[in-house]
């Protein structure tokens, strides 16, 4: 099996008319897909386009409603992930399924034959991880490893089954640019061995760089198959979205005003064993400024959000100053009354309660700040349904929220539309300080551009905006100032124009110019040494 073998002649995997119905909704609608031997095949599409449903069917997690899958010309049925592995299909999920309290080898053993001795697994793990440039220490505990290392465990676990096809679901969404680079080298090595890769991503540049062919999905249908190297990011985006995505417009220079929010040397111990402690964080945001805080997930972003929002107030009252008033010990509604607005990362169960209606979810964030408009009857606090309903209508039309029915449950909206509502809920108050965590995470391109434009406009109107985001494209699109968070430390702020992608990558990995983030880079090194020692 070599990579020069004719792709058209005998595809490794051939999918015909694959359909998955959930009720009457077709998540995948008559999908055709061919993956050749030794090919890196990209699967492109927006959130909700059906990518995950498709690969879950290929990996036996879901059963297709109709259609066929053939492997090397023979039709196969894949009833379970175990069967998929035996057929030679390996999968690395976007969300890892690892036990933090167990070691690397123990985690790998869980997916293998229970009779294989642990020592043998550890040995094979070391060999494979060395051979593919994926340094891993088999005896390290998962809890101590970085996200990149955890992903390596998943890849090694898949490779131990000697698969012909490896499916990677959004592998780089959790990696620094440098870590991603390393992953690409591994993928090239796999390709050279004649293995095939199905690579799911919405990052068009990396798809263009490493993939041989691409299949584009939209609304559960194949809308294009192409060689990504012959396309431009814009033409790929058009295939994904169906229309041109509006570009965020912003004036080159916002006039900066007073400091509206200031954080002074705040340290917060971690509340749970798996949370990140904040270490000596300082930042300032002025009126008219968009401060973007970049960083890989799980480096203290949500803890920083909790401290600034006041969901978990901090001990030092002067640690946070909002519009000139120290508010460190003030709770979230006190800070809202001072003109701050907050948008947390998790839509369901944090920013909104899925089972409650949109109007109830509006009241959720504004029961205190809009007490006069939304409540009546003094101490009885009777909810003024009509006022809230009309405010919800106003927000929906301002942000173009598409919904079914007059006041549907939040859970029935798509991610993008619910996020537009949640952001609009704050914008509707015209907050002088807005703190947003991952504003467009899992949101379709149209809604994302709408939300980004709204944030830029808010800053232009004289508010201070903090955007915590993992999406570097988003950060470069809207930020006036960029800082990077890594292992609970925040870097110095840099004007957006002065930072390159590579510099951000280094900061994300924890290499600060002021203090070196010993943990993650050091962890990598020890991992490498031990792995080589085996």
């Amino acid at each position, binding site marked *: 099996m070599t990579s020069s073998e004719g792709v058209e002649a005998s595809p490794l995997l051939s999918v015909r008319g694959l359909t998955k119905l*959930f009720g009457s909704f077709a998540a995948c609608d008559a999908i055709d897909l061919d993956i050749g031997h030794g090919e890196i095949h990209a699967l492109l599409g927006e959130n909700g386009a059906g990518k995950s449903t498709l690969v879950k069917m290929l990996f036996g997690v879901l059963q297709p409603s109709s259609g066929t899958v053939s492997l090397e010309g023979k039709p196969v049925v894949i009833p379970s992930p*175990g069967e998929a592995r035996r057929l030679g299909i390996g999968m690395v999920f976007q969300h890892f399924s690892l036990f933090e309290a167990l070691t690397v080898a123990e985690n790998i053993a869980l997916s293998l034959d229970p009779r294989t001795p642990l020592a043998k697994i550890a040995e094979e793990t070391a060999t494979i991880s060395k051979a593919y440039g994926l340094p891993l220490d088999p005896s390290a505990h998962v809890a101590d490893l970085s996200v990149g290392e955890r992903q390596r465990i998943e890849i090694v676990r898949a490779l131990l089954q000697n698969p012909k096809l490896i499916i990677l679901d959004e592998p780089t969404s959790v990696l620094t640019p440098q870590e991603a680079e390393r992953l690409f080298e591994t993928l090239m090595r796999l390709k050279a061995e004649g293995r095939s890769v199905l690579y799911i991503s919405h990052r068009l540049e990396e798809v263009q760089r490493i993939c041989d062919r691409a299949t584009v999905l939209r609304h559960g249908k194949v809308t294009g198959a192409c060689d990504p190297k012959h396309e431009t990011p814009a033409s790929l985006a058009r295939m994904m979205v169906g229309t041109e995505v509006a570009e965020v417009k912003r004036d080159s220079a916002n006039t900066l005003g007073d400091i509206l929010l200031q954080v002074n040397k705040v340290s917060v111990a971690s509340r749970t064993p798996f949370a990140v402690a904040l270490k000596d964080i300082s930042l300032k945001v002025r009126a008219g400024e968009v401060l973007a805080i970049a960083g890989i997930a799980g480096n203290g972003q949500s803890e920083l959000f909790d401290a600034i*929002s006041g969901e978990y107030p901090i001990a030092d009252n002067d640690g946070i100053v909002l519009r000139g008033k120290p508010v460190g010990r003030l709770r979230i509604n006190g800070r809202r009354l001072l003109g701050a607005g907050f948008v947390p990362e998790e839509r369901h169960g*944090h920013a909104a309660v899925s089972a409650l209606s949109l109007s*109830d979810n509006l009241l*959720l*964030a504004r*029961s205190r700040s809009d007490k006069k408009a939304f409540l009546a009857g003094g101490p009885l606090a*009777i*909810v003024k349904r009509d006022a809230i309903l009309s405010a919800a209508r106003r927000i929906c039309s301002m942000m173009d929220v598409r919904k079914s029915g007059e006041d549907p449950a939040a859970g029935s909206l798509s991610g993008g539309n619910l996020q537009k509502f949640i952001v609009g809920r704050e914008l509707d108050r015209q907050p002088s300080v807005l703190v947003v965590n991952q504003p467009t995470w899992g949101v379709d391109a149209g809604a994302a551009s709408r939300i980004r434009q709204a944030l830029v406009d808010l800053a232009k109107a004289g508010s201070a905006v903090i955007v915590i985001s993992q999406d570097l494209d988003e950060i470069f699109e809207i930020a006036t100032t960029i800082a990077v968070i890594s292992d609970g430390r925040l870097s110095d702020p840099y004007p957006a124009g002065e930072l390159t992608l590579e510099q951000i990558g280094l900061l994300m990995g924890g290499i600060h110019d002021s203090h070196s983030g010993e943990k993650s880079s050091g962890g990598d090194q020890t991992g490498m040494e031990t792995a080589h020692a085996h």
Partner: protein
Amino acid sequence: MRIELQKRANTSMLFSLLSPLLALALTLIAGAIMFGLLGKSPLNSLYIYFVEPLLDVWSLHELAIKAAPLILIAVGLSVCFRSNNWNIGAEGQFTIGAITGSILPVLNPEWHSPLILPLMLVMGMIGGALYAGIPALLKTRFNTNEILTSLMLVYIAQLFLDWLVRGPWRDPQGYNFPQTKSFQPEAVLPEILDSGRAHLGIVFALIAAVALWFMMRFMLKGFQVSVLGQSERAGRFAGFSARRMVWFSMLLSGSLAGLAGISEVSGSIGHVQPVISPGYGFTAIIVAFLGRLNPLGIIASGFVLALTYLGGEAAQLSLGISDKVSRVFQGLILFFVLSCDTLIHYRIRLIVNPSAAQEGKS
């Protein structure tokens, strides 16, 4: 092969509304089978159990007496359960409410003042609330599980009552029976109608149900209850305190259980004795769920469950069956309510897995 519960794409509104009625129908069918197995005529037994008690005025009064504590406790519990606090110890709060409410008449049998009754009711509510405050304190301070602590406190309350009426509170002229002196007339909850024994307890129950319905439906407090019950994190984002909600819901349900306790002792029994409840505090959990945790629904379900108590007594007299049969009916109702609800949201699928055999081989 395995059995799976699969979530239905959309739940039927009609069946969600019909579910309690469906559960009642199934309970009746299961009850008929049970009577048949016991060698009684099923239809006649069901008639004696469920219909006869409704036919004369005296037993309608009894129905109201039994429904009152069930409704009072259950509306308090519905707020608790809605806010995701699982107070299982209403029986204990009922008992302690009865004890603290009885302090005045037991210790001052000669105090004949119209003030005594309102004071007794207030003290009963305070007693029940304080007793529910123990699991609330343990939960907010030490993060203990309120299901266990509130349940265990039931047995402490019952044994404490037992000790009281056999020891310090025993009536010296009571021929050594373990009970207190009968309350003075001013300390007895008045009857509402001349035609029977039903006392003000049922009025309290209806007022509480309507008030809590209003709170849950129209007030910010009710909104806080449902937000915190569904997502503590979202509640924190809204600025609502989950700790305060633990206190609010536990104290509210505790005080209503305490009010039920003192109303029962003062209105129906007239003195304190070792056993003052046929398990009202536990049955109220069934009442709350059968009423879909909605205070108005609870009024209806309270009367249904009260009927099982009354029918149990009737069955004992006319059919010669143990009154444990009322427990059986209560269990059946809860079982069918929960299974109807489950089947409305999920469908049962038999999964025949051809690769299961191979799975073992690997």
